[in-house]
């Protein structure tokens, strides 16, 4: 069995996120990701996955694997990345998120939330207050993601706002993430030193791109047989030769 190293950016946004640039629509995201030498991206818009299938269609036949995902805000305002291997797996989580997400978006204040297809056409404007937080607590959310067959990754743990350490001080007892994400601004070694209780976790880096220019600014090289969710899971656990090889920067 041959293992290969894949360059993965497991946290990118599309124009659907209200805080994103409009030019990071599905086709542009795919093209720029390939140009930046990425092999795998995970599309994680705030509390919504409605652009995921269009990004997957835009990437069909191209040398880029797209994981369906979402960046979910829990009731504590902790951001969690939920990654799945199919859009179907994500649907259960999406339903729960929409049911627990109060408010309507105000475009003038937060930005617009276009759902854009692979032909660059706007399908509709997502009406939910995607910038907001759900009423679902972190523990329940992590369990729900795992129960639906997904991976739960704590987003940008080094940021003061919207991170598990920022909001909750430390990783709560009984919660087990599949990995922890560090933003590009903090060296991994500093994270290992500064945060308690993370020694057993794989640390990954992602761009958290909200504009095309962010793509390629951070990624994680992951050794797997193929870029599938089960292989990714094995790599995050360091099983059978699969592993997180390196993180850039």
């Amino acid at each position, binding site marked *: 069995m041959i293992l290969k190293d894949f360059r993965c950016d497991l946290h990118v946004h599309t124009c659907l996120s209200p805080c994103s640039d409009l030019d990071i629509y599905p086709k542009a995201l795919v093209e720029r990701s390939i140009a930046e030498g990425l092999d795998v991206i995970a599309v994680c818009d705030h509390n919504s996955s409605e652009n995921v299938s269009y990004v997957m269609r835009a990437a069909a036949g191209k040398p880029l694997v797209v994981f369906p995902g979402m960046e979910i805000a829990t*009731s504590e305002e902790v951001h969690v990345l939920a990654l799945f291997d199919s859009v179907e797996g994500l649907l259960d989580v999406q339903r729960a998120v929409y049911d627990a997400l109060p408010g309507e978006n105000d475009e003038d204040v937060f930005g617009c939330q276009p759902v854009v297809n692979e032909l660059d056409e706007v399908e509709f404007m997502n009406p939910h207050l995607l910038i907001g937080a759900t009423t679902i607590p972190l523990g329940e959310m992590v369990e729900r993601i795992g129960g639906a067959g997904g991976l739960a990754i704590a987003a940008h743990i080094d940021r003061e706002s919207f991170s598990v350490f*920022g909001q909750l001080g*430390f990783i709560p*007892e009984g919660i087990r993430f599949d990995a922890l994400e560090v933003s590009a601004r903090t060296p991994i070694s500093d994270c290992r030193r500064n945060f308690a209780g993370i020694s057993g976790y794989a640390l990954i880096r992602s761009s958290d791109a909200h504009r095309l220019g962010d793509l390629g600014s951070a990624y994680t090289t992951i050794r797997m047989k193929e870029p599938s969710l089960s292989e990714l899971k094995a790599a995050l656990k360091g099983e059978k030769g699969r592993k997180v090889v390196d993180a850039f920067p």
Partner: protein
Amino acid sequence: MKLEEIAGKLNLRVLCCDEGLSREVRGGFVGDLLSDVMANSREGDLWITRQVHPNIVAVAVMKEHSAILLVQGGIPMEDTLSRARKEGVPILGTEINGFEAAGKIYGLMNP
């Protein structure tokens, strides 16, 4: 000032550990970012917050707060209450928001 006096004057609900009402409140701290509370609050503080997660109990124990006050009708998670009972951390509740609560408590403590 005793916690009991503040609770009485502001009509706070005691959600757990009423045996802790005799505690002395030396100051206050308002914060929902637990990392910030851990870094900047002090021993004896009455901690005013909207967070209801069980981790608030651990932070209050670590920082030796006199009590936690949940504002805007915040309902503690079940695990939060059981941990607070176990650790003996009084949790109080009020419908008013953090601004009003902090202002009123500050006024009581600094007449």
